């Protein structure tokens, strides 16, 4: 049964990636997509290889990254409402991005204030501050961490709004970024989100049994010899790093990191060894498909991807909730 589900998931994954490469303002059929991928002289090479493939890959990496970080955070905090932005990553990243646009507008020197760099830096500053504020006597208590994350988020959001007030002229640019988009991705953009995703994924898979114990109960995990503070530190810091490296390139993409882990739990169970992999695959598919829809539905313009993920994800999740078995 489970094997069947996995095979279905992988098949859906491959077909949908090909579909995402074929749709857009210029329609390229499946055969031409495959030709363009492997034949450098193909007439669709520049569209498929140069424009769409980096965009699709970024969708896959961002979806996999946000969904698996969401799954690990939800397990660690025993809280189904947690997402990868828990520690203020999204508001820190937004502030960095808007600050970069603001400084470039004021000074005229675009290159000095590279948006992804500032965005990434502030995302990491936000999560670091959240962890430091929550830490007490060498431990990171859950309630304090959630609260300090909320406080840091509110602070950076307010600072972002202040900058937006001051910006005026370039405000559209800032808003497009804040809604999240995969447009204009290049091969160079893929490196850091991919590396940080792999790092997080490897570490959290390595700690998956410890994550199971912590999802059952933090005290229970301690009793069974789990170094809970070490697990928290690794998962929080690498998870925030992975989320920050995505957000600094794509802008804030909501929903995927919150809801995908629940879909994965419904389909494949709560064991983190399986959950992390299934969340990553479903998140990758979801974001890739939503991006294709975002490109096509109001073509030649684009919908913000966060809006599409909600429109697609909510009905899917509702069906799973209604149809899923009740495990008590």
């Amino acid at each position, binding site marked *: 049964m489970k094997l069947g589900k996995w095979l279905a998931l992988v098949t859906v994954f491959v077909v949908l990636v090909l579909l995402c490469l074929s749709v857009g303002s210029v329609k390229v059929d499946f055969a031409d997509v495959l030709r363009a991928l492997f034949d450098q002289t193909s007439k669709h090479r520049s569209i498929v290889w140069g424009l769409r493939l980096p965009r699709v890959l970024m969708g896959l990496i961002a979806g996999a990254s946000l969904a698996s970080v969401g799954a690990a955070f939800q397990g660690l905090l025993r809280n189904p409402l947690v997402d990868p932005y828990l520690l203020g990553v999204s508001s820190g990243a937004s502030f960095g991005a808007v600050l970069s646009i603001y400084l470039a507008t004021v000074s005229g020197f675009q290159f000095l204030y590279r948006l992804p760099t500032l965005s990434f830096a502030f995302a990491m500053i936000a999560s670091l501050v959240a962890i430091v504020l929550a830490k007490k006597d060498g431990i990171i208590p859950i309630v304090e961490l959630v609260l300090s994350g909320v406080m840091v988020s509110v602070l950076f959001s307010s600072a972002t709004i202040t900058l937006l007030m001051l910006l005026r002229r370039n405000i559209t640019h800032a808003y497009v970024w804040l809604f999240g988009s995969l447009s204009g991705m290049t091969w160079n953009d893929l490196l850091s989100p991919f590396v940080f995703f792999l790092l997080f994924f490897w570490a959290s898979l390595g700690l998956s049994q410890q994550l199971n114990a912590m999802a059952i109960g933090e005290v229970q995990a301690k009793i069974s010899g789990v170094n809970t503070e070490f697990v928290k530190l690794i998962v929080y810091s690498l998870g925030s790093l992975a989320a920050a490296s995505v957000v600094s390139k794509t802008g804030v993409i909501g929903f995927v990191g919150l809801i995908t882990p629940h879909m994965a739990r419904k389909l494949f169970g709560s064991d983190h060894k399986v959950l992390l992999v299934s969340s990553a695959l479903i998140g990758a598919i979801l974001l890739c498909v939503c991006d294709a829809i975002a490109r096509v539905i109001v073509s030649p313009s684009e919908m913000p991807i966060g809006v599409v993920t909600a429109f697609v994800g909510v009905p899917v999740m509702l069906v799973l909730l209604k149809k899923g078995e009740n495990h*008590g």
Partner: protein
Amino acid sequence: MVEIILRNVDFAYVKDPVLRSIDLQINKGEFVSLIGPNGSGKTTLLKLVAGLLKPTRGTVLVRGMEPGRMRKRQLARIVGFVTEDLNPIYPFQVKQIVLTGRLPYKSSFFASWDELDFQKVKEALAKVDALEYLDRYFGQLSAGEKKRVSIARILAQDTPILLFDEPTAHLDPGHAVEVLEIMKKLHDEGRTILTAFHEINFAVRLSDRIVMMKEGKIFAEGKAEKVLTKENLEQVYNTRFRLVNDPSTGLPYVIY
């Protein structure tokens, strides 16, 4: 052989001490019950032995080592602690829950289960008569079944010392007796047991020794017939008691 020593132990969560000048020794294979009203420090004492808390003053030793300073996995191979009810927030199968009890024997990175782990899980579940729940989801079990599974999780940890915190809380008489029988079986196997009980008669039934606590101090300690006097009980619990002799055991039976 002495397994657990508490020497002049104080503990305070913030300022006011919860435990004061506790001196206690527990020998290998002994069954010791902690009784006393809510807030008398029973759970805190158990947490100190389990290494979940560190004493503010004095020394806690388990097999000659301080639990708070031992490597966590090393301690988890010696001391198992059945705490309040398990409450996994996501759906986990019983076997997944009991398997986490095997973590002290696994590498702390990329831990994977082998045949021995599955065998220990099955043995632990069989011991508490819960093997049939192996593939069931924990959330679908009754309170009594859940308690047995949480005991099995600690049994899979395979420790010579077992701590229990109110193991019969929220259980009906039938399920409570089942848990008591499991505890007796574990004691008969030679394990050292330290448990907190609200139900005084359960403590009488199983214990080699009873430790009566009041306001963070040990009020009385020893055999049931010595500790459970009308005066002691009324002073500690601030209510009236009647004591009779249980003809089947010859031990005191407390009525309140």
